[in-house]
C-alpha cells in the first residue's frame, strides 16, 4: 500500500513536471517561431499593399484584425527588430509583442500601446534609454518615435494606457526584468512621434 502510494506520487510528480516542461518549452519556442511566422505574414502584407498602391492610393482607416501582424518595430541602437501583432491575450503575446486593441494605430493621434513579455521579446527594453529612436513600420507608412521618458508603475496605474492628445507610443512590459514569479510592476517606455519617414513599399 505504502509502496503503491509512493509509486503513484512519483508518477504524479513526473507527469506534472513534464507538463510544466512542456508549457515552458512551448512559451519559449513559441516566442521564437512566432516571430518567424509573424515576419512572413508581415512581408506578405507589404507585398499586397505594394500591389494596391500601384493601382490606387489608399489609406487604411480600419484597425487590423486580432492576431494580425500589422507592424514591424525596430530599435536601431539596440539592433532589435520585432514584429507586432494586434491584441494582447496570451496567444498573441506568445507570438509577438501585441498592440492593445483600442489604442491608437501607429502614426495616429493618441496613445499607441504595445505590450510584450519581459522574458522574451521585450527583454531588450532593459537597455533602452531616453533619446532612442523607435521605428514602427506598417504596410501603410513608417513612423519614427523618439523615447522621452522611462518609468516604472504599478499594475494598477492604467493611466499609461489612456489616449494622449498627440501621437505617442508606449511600450509596456513587466518589471523587474529578472524576477521569479509574477512581477509586481510595469516598465513603460514613452515615446513621441518624431515624423513619418516614408510610405512602406
Amino acid at each position, binding site marked *: 500500500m505504502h509502496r503503491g502510494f*509512493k*509509486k503513484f506520487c*512519483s508518477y*504524479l*510528480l*513526473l507527469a*506534472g*513536471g*513534464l*507538463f*510544466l*516542461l*512542456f*508549457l*515552458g518549452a512551448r*512559451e*519559449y519556442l513559441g*516566442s521564437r517561431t512566432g516571430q518567424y511566422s509573424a515576419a512572413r505574414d508581415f512581408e506578405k502584407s507589404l507585398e499586397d499593399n505594394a500591389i494596391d498602391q500601384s493601382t490606387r*492610393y489608399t*489609406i*487604411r*482607416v*480600419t*484597425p487590423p484584425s486580432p492576431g494580425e501582424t500589422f507592424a514591424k518595430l525596430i530599435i536601431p541602437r539596440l539592433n532589435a527588430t520585432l514584429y507586432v501583432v494586434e491584441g494582447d491575450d*496570451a496567444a498573441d*503575446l506568445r507570438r509577438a509583442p*501585441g498592440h*492593445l486593441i*483600442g*489604442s*491608437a*494605430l501607429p*502614426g*495616429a*493621434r*493618441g496613445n*499607441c*500601446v504595445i*505590450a510584450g*513579455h*519581459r*522574458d522574451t521579446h521585450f527583454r531588450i527594453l532593459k537597455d533602452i534609454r531616453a533619446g532612442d529612436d523607435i521605428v514602427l513600420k506598417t504596410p*501603410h*507608412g513608417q513612423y519614427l518615435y523618439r523615447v522621452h521618458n522611462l518609468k516604472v508603475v504599478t499594475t494598477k496605474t*492604467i493611466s499609461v*494606457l*489612456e*489616449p494622449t492628445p498627440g*501621437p505617442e507610443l508606449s511600450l*509596456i512590459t*513587466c518589471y523587474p526584468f529578472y524576477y*521569479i514569479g*509574477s*512581477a509586481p510592476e*510595469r516598465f513603460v517606455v514613452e515615446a513621441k*512621434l518624431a*515624423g*513619418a519617414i*516614408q*510610405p512602406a513599399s
Partner: protein
Amino acid sequence: MIAAGITALGLATLVTPVKAQSPMYDRVEVNLPYTVTVGDKTLPPGSYVIQQLRDIGGNSRVLLIYSDNGTRFETSAVTIPTLDINTPEHTSVILHHFGPDYYFDKVWIQGKDYGYEFPLPNSVKMREKERMEPITVNATYSTVAQQTQAPVTTPQAEAPAPPPEEAPVEAPPEANREAPPAMPHTSSGWLMMLLGGGSLSAVGMMLRRKK
C-alpha cells in the same frame, strides 16, 4: 456628406467641345464621337449636318439634323438664341455630358456672336433635379469612435499625391476608443515553468528510485 458627394459626381456636367468641319452660313457639319440624344431621337456616332431651317425671315431658331452628308433627315430641334460677346473663332458644337449620356448643348458659328442653345429634355432636367436634392440619412451619435489611422505628413514624407477624385476620405485620426481596463500580463514565465517542471520531474524520479 455622402449625398453631396454623389450629387456632385452625378452633376459633373462635362462640356465637351466637338470638332466641327467646313462651317457655312447656318449650316454646320459635325462628326459626333458619341451617341447623342436630341429630344426623343438618339443619334449614333457619325457625321451629321446641322442646318438652320430656312424660312422667310431667315432667322429661324429651328435646326434640322441630317445624316448621310445631309441627305437623310434625322430630327429637328427648337433652339434658344444665345449670344457670346467674344465672337468665336471656330465653329463648334458643345455637348452636355450626364453620366453616360450626351445631349446637344450649343452650336457656335465661326465669326458670329450668336449661337443656338438646345434646351435640355424635361426628363433630364427632372433627373438632374433629383440628383441635386440632398439626401438626409438618420445617424446615431456614439462616444465610442472607430479607430482610424492617418499618415503623418512631415517634410521628409514622400507620400504620392493622389488624384483628387480618387483620394479616399481620410477619417479623423483621433483615437477615441476606450482604453483597455487592465494592464496586460507581460510575463510568459517560461523559465519558471522549466525550472518547476525540472524540479518536479527530478523529485518524481527520486521517489521511484528510492526503495
